[in-house]
């Protein structure tokens, strides 16, 4: 029978020699031994005399420093203190994160006038307080050093807005009656839409073009055909018992992914008494975040997406004939998906990420067939975050080229970079008489514009957004504009002859609509207003199905290799490319940072003669291939081998390869893949049916964290079962624990007490603990960025990551789980992925504490494993002794904490130095120490929040609350950022806290502690991953480690190390 094996890299899969060696090296580099050569100490590079010089100098310097007087510091209070302001106490303002068309209701934490952290707005029923990585990182964009600091006209600074307004108004008057085009990203703001309408009315013949770099134009077109509505309905992933996704990455990057992840998480949470969960079947070409979380996953060529949809429709009884599909596995998958969909009785949902309207028409037909409309898909509220019509953009470029446009005002889009024919756009753009850009920096498009008037950052702005009809979200400024920037809406109002500020305009707009000043005040305070609209139903019009099926059936088969262009979870369309936090966030699947790359399958690697089995992952230099698409510039790009990619498919991420002026973090990172997008009919197509590839002799360094922090084969770190197995043997994990008690618990049967020589710590008051549900963790990485923002985690740059110096306190371990057949072959295309957030486990019997020679890491009476930076002398014994590999060492002065500039010079990347700028440093959390060179750091359970929460409770004269009746004094940053509430934190001494409830009542069967047999007694517990699949999972097989727990193999001795 087949067995499942968990592995993080190819070395581990094959247990290669190089992998074994790399395990031995906790720190991958050798010490700098250049001084210890044979030539004798005086001839070495730093001879004895130099040493003495340094010694003498440092002594003298210390003496000097000691005799210097203390600096005199000033304390300057206000002249008139604002009434509500208390220095050192954070204020929270509700606002809305707007990124292109996307809008997420958020709360901005403002400390002493500076926004420093973004949280989700829990009042929104759309996101329920969830955020994504890009939203979490958006606060850093406010302090981006590459932001344009003043308006510019013809390449020169314009000193006043009045002068700028005059220049533009004159130019607008002189366009000779030619139309003005307003080119923006999708706009969901009702008031802005009205302003635009007023502006257009002022300039007859003008028009508004909405353009989305990641377009949903195909879906909109299909819905227009099927339902007569150019809109996207609401999908209820929580209600769906069966979810079939045809390449839609709805947990990562597809449409309103925060909402979808939230709903999907509901369906994946397991009630122990009645273990049921949704079933998710995924068809795709490359390994996406959503595919990685699927219960069953099948791969196909991108050119087969229509065929797959047709086959599924035909199986469900649709009167279409499907073209033949490659591979038996895929066919079986379609049979299985069809069976599951028909059995779900309407509680099912099919989504497709295709931009081909024909595919979407078939998907609509399938959803109609299975009765999804009215059940899991609703037209009551439609999604507004993608309204761009791709053909409008093509038309605009033609018009600009033909001199039929008098002026183009660009806001929030960058088509020179992300339009598929950016060059043509640039040429046409240059021909237009008046070009104005409202973008916040001199990006590729603004560079060519005659006038630039930078828009405010969203945290400096007033505004509103309606991501879904009826779901309003408001924006209020959290800081005065840092630079001489002005809101785009104010400019439009001015230029259309209305002298109202947008602030007043917005207020008037909503005061009348919401019914009064107090309603408006409340709306701003809450951030969201949700109005339940009337129930809307739309009849499915099947007329177009036959036509669409016919077109899809005649799609030609792709070439030897096909290309898929995809957005990364961290980078999206590339709008936030100059955000070092996002650049440094490891991709959930590849774990690579700071680059885009071609992802190819194991089979293709073999064909290219790339050895994947030995030194592949230990070596950071990766082979480079040249991708050639007919009619386009070839791209040379490094490759990463990723299992689960179709063997004829190459995946390439968009959003990279930005210009110099975009910023120091974005410049020269990766290659721009947008030119490979093509226009298919009226819509952009993000796949290429035929791409030629050729391996080049060059090598390229890709910094990825995949092989760092290994567990040396201790695979009991992660545990997974199928729903069937779990139902049959719910006590399997409890039995493991019983076995431990039996073996090590002694006569009193107390594993905690008797499993160690060390004394037990008492926890008289609070004892902190965390529970992480692997079933609702999808690896999106929002927690990683939230942790970075909350705890001043430094950015180290690409080269440092490549030498395993990354600093993230919270990483998400990605385990590939492939199936091994009876003959011992691993099928690398057929896999699942388990994501496991790994952070300091705050062990009650911590191995790090015992080895510190200076007691810099020690235990608190609340169960925290405390790290004291000022005591740390950097021996790194603790990191060596940590079984979870969560301790991070400051190899350089990444954050500018030292007073010695030598700790930075020539050692740090541009991006790290950018984070040292006074402007960027404004994002630092003042409650968390900035660490200097030479000390270890790690997750602190957000101790600054714990202290604050306890103090709040003390001041209010009551016990601390961690979840009883949904009252929270304390939430860690990762917990708060999680869109699915997979992370729960609280006081485990309190029987009513959520974490206690989970551990002791609600989830006793799935509960496990990572590496429990080591008796380190972690404070973080995990809930085992459950897959809703018929296949056998949960078997840990492998030749180099003992199985820890098995469903089939009975109880073996727990692994001892």
């Amino acid at each position, binding site marked *: 029978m087949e067995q499942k094996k968990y592995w993080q890299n190819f070395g581990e899969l094959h247990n290669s020699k190089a992998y074994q060696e790399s395990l031995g090296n906790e720190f991958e580099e050798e010490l700098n031994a250049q001084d210890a050569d044979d030539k004798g100490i005086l001839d070495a590079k730093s001879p004895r005399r130099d040493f003495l010089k340094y010694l003498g100098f440092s002594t003298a310097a210390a003496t000097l420093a000691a005799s210097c007087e*203390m600096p005199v510091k000033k*304390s300057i*209070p206000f*002249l008139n203190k604002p009434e509500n302001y*208390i220095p050192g106490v954070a204020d929270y303002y509700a606002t809305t994160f707007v990124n292109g068309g996307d809008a997420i209701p958020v709360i901005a934490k403002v400390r002493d006038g500076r926004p420093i952290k973004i949280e989700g707005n829990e009042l929104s029923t759309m996101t329920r307080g969830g955020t994504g990585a890009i939203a979490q990182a958006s606060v850093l964009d406010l302090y981006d050093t590459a932001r344009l600091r003043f308006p510019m006209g013809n390449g020169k600074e314009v000193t006043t807005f009045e002068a700028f307004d005059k220049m533009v108004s004159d130019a607008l008057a002189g366009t000779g009656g030619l139309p003005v085009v307003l080119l923006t990203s999708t706009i969901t703001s009702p008031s802005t839409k009205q302003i635009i309408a007023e502006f257009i009315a002022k300039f007859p013949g003008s028009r508004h073009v909405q353009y989305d770099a990641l377009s949903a134009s195909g879906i909109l077109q299909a819905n227009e055909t099927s339902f007569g509505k150019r809109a996207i309905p609401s999908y209820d992933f929580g209600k769906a018992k069966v979810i079939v996704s045809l390449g839609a990455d709805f947990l990562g990057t597809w449409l309103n992914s925060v909402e979808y992840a939230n709903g999907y998480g509901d369906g994946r949470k397991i009630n122990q008494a009645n273990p049921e969960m949704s079933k998710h079947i995924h068809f795709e070409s490359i390994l996406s975040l959503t595919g990685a979380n699927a219960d069953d996953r099948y791969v196909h060529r991108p050119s087969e997406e229509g065929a797959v949809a047709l086959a599924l429709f035909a199986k469900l009884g649709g009167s279409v004939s499907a073209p033949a599909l490659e591979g038996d596995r895929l066919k079986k998958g379609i049979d299985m998906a069809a069976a599951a969909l028909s059995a779900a009785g309407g509680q099912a949902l099919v989504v497709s990420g295709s931009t081909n309207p024909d595919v979407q028409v078939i998907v609509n037909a399938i959803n109609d067939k299975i009765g999804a409309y009215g059940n899991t898909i609703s037209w009551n509220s439609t999604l507004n975050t993608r309204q761009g019509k791709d053909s409008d953009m093509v038309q605009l470029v033609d018009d600009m080229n033909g001199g039929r446009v008098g002026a183009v005002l660009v806001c929030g889009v960058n088509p020179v970079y992300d339009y598929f024919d950016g060059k043509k756009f640039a040429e046409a753009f240059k021909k237009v008489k008046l070009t104005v850009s409202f973008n916040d920096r001199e990006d590729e498009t603004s560079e060519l514009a005659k006038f630039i008037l930078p828009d405010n950052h969203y945290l400096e702005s007033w505004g509103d957004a309606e991501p879904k009809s009826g779901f309003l979200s408001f924006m209020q400024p959290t800081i005065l504009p840092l630079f001489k920037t002005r809101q785009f809406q104010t400019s439009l109002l001015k230029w259309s002859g209305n002298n109202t500020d947008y602030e007043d305009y917005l207020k008037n707009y909503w005061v009348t609509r919401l019914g009064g000043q107090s309603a408006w005040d409340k709306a701003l305070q809450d951030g969201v207003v949700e109005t339940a609209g009337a129930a809307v139903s739309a009849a499915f019009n099947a007329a177009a199905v036959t036509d669409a099926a016919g077109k899809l059936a005649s799609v030609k088969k792709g070439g030897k290799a096909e290309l898929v262009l995809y957005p990364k979870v961290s980078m999206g369309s590339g709008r936030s490319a100059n955000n070092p936090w996002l650049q440094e966030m490891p991709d959930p699947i590849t774990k690579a940072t700071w680059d885009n790359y071609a992802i190819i399958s194991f089979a293709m690697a073999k064909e290219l003669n790339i050895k994947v089995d030995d030194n592949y992952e230990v070596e950071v230099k990766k082979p480079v291939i040249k991708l050639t698409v007919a009619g386009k510039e070839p791209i040379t790009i490094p490759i990463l081998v990723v299992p689960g990619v179709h063997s004829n498919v190459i995946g390439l991420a968009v959003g990279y390869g930005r210009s110099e002026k975009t910023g120091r973090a974005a410049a020269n990172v990766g290659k721009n893949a947008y030119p490979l997008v093509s226009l298919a009919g009226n819509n952009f197509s993000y796949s290429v049916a035929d791409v030629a590839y050729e391996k080049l002799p060059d090598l390229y360094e890709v910094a990825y964290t995949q092989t760092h922090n290994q567990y040396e084969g201790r695979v009991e770190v992660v545990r997974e079962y199928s729903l069937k197995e779990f139902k049959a043997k719910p006590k399997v994990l409890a039995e493991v624990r019983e076995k431990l008690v039996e073996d090590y618990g002694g006569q009193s049967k107390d594993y905690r007490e008797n499993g160690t020589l060390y004394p037990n710590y008492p926890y008289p008051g609070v004892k902190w603990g965390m529970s992480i549900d692997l079933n609702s963790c999808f690896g999106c990485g929002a927690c990683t960025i939230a942790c970075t923002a909350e705890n001043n985690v430094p950015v180290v740059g690409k080269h440092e990551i490549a030498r395993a110096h990354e600093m993230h306190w919270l990483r998400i371990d990605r385990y590939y789980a492939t199936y091994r057949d009876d003959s011992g072959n691993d099928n690398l295309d057929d896999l699942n992925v388990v994501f496991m957030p790994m952070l300091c486990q705050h062990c009650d019997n911590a191995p790090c504490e015992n080895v510190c020679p200076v007691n810099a890491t020690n235990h608190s009476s609340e169960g925290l494993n405390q790290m004291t930076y000022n005591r740390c002398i950097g021996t790194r014994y603790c990191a060596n002794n940590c079984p979870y590999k969560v301790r991070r060492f400051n190899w350089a002065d990444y954050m500018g904490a030292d007073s010695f500039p030598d700790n930075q010079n020539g050692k740090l990347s541009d991006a790290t130095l950018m984070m040292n700028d006074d402007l960027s440093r404004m994002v630092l959390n003042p409650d968390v120490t900035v660490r200097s060179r030479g000390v270890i750091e790690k997750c602190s359970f957000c101790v600054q929040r714990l202290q604050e929460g306890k103090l709040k409770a003390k001041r209010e*004269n*009551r016990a601390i609350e961690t979840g009883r009746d949904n009252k929270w004094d304390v939430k860690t940053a990762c917990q708060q950022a999680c869109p699915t509430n997979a992370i729960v934190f609280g006081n485990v*001494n309190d029987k009513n806290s959520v974490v206690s409830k989970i551990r002791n009542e609600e989830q006793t069967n799935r509960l496990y502690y990572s590496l429990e047999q080591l008796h380190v007694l972690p404070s973080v517990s995990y809930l085992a991953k459950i897959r809703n699949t018929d296949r056998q999972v949960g078997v840990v097989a492998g030749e180099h480690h003992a199985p820890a727990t098995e469903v089939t193999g009975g109880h073996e001795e727990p692994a001892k190390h």
Partner: protein
Amino acid sequence: MIYHRSIVRSFLPGLLLLISFSFANSVLAQDGKALFQQKCASCHAPEKVLIGPALKGADANWEDRAQLHNWVRNSAAVIKSGYPRAVAVFNQFNKIQMTAFPELSDAQIDAIFTYVNNFGAATTPGPGGPAEDPNLKKASDSDNTLLYGILTIILAVIALILLQVNSNLRKLSEEKDGQTIPEPVPFYRNKAYIATAAIILFMIAGWLIFKGAEGLGREKNYQPKQPIFYSHTVHAGVNQISCLYCHGNTMEGKQANIPSVNICMNCHMGITEYTKGPKLYNAEGKEIDGTAEIKKLHEYAGYDPATKKYNGKGKPIEWVRIHNLPDHVYFNHSQHVNAGKVQCQTCHGEIQKMGEVKQFADLSMGWCVNCHRETKVQFADNKFYSIYEKFHEDLKNKKIDSVTVEMIGGTECQKCHY
């Protein structure tokens, strides 16, 4: 100026209101004091006329106590009703409208008057109020170091003489025995003496260097010259103004804010000269003209006392910061003063007797930790500690008599360093 609204702030007043209601039923004299300091002290003193009248015995002038209650809650209404006493007071104080306190109950107003009427009798120290602190006594205990030093030196000299006598006697006895005696070595060339002296000097020098190094960055007794000679003696000592009136954020924030100029001007709009109080001397003993210092304040505020108008050209005062903690130390005033009920004087010394402020404690970690070891937490009074079941049990069984900060983890690293 952009108008921000905060979520937290919006329910905070409500919460405060709720708390004040929940205690409304049991109003005691000490609540009167707290209320007085919270609500009244900005304009009234018990025995002095500030912006408003002195309150001690003021209630006796009101025949109808209900009217007095109404006056406090909304004076404008009482004036409008034509109640003679109200009109008289209003006219007497330049027709300055008293701030309305609609949240105060009759019982609370009575408690305030009970407090002010008994003012000057035995006042019990409350949080934030000037008070004697038992810890201060310790510091002033006579220092015996000098005595011990002198004793040590005397003993050392005696030992030296005895050794010399001993060696001379031995020399004599050996001479008597007719043994050959080597040339005597003078004591300053005696290697044993030189070695001993060197070791002692080395130890003293080492101790001094260690102490000096340890004291780097510590500034005990730092008393810089400030832009305005502000005397805590006059304000907190003589006039008994609550510390919290000016340093109000102490109860809520980590910083005990230095008051903004508008807080000073609340009183100094009316108080324009310093005549009645004790003479003021600065650290060098030079006499200070209080009126001139108030004038300086008016300049900062951009206020003309003659016309009673602001010219709008005010600027903030650049005070010299005295208490500096290193960046990696987290200190929160509200934790200590609000939750811990620690007196200001415990850390800041007898601030009510200071002219210009002087740093009282060295703010070293040893000093912090010592206090955390000795100080008892508000264990029974604060419900936060209800979760410490074992300690409650031990207290009941008389195993322990109190719970110190250290026992609940107050000396652990991450209580202050994170």
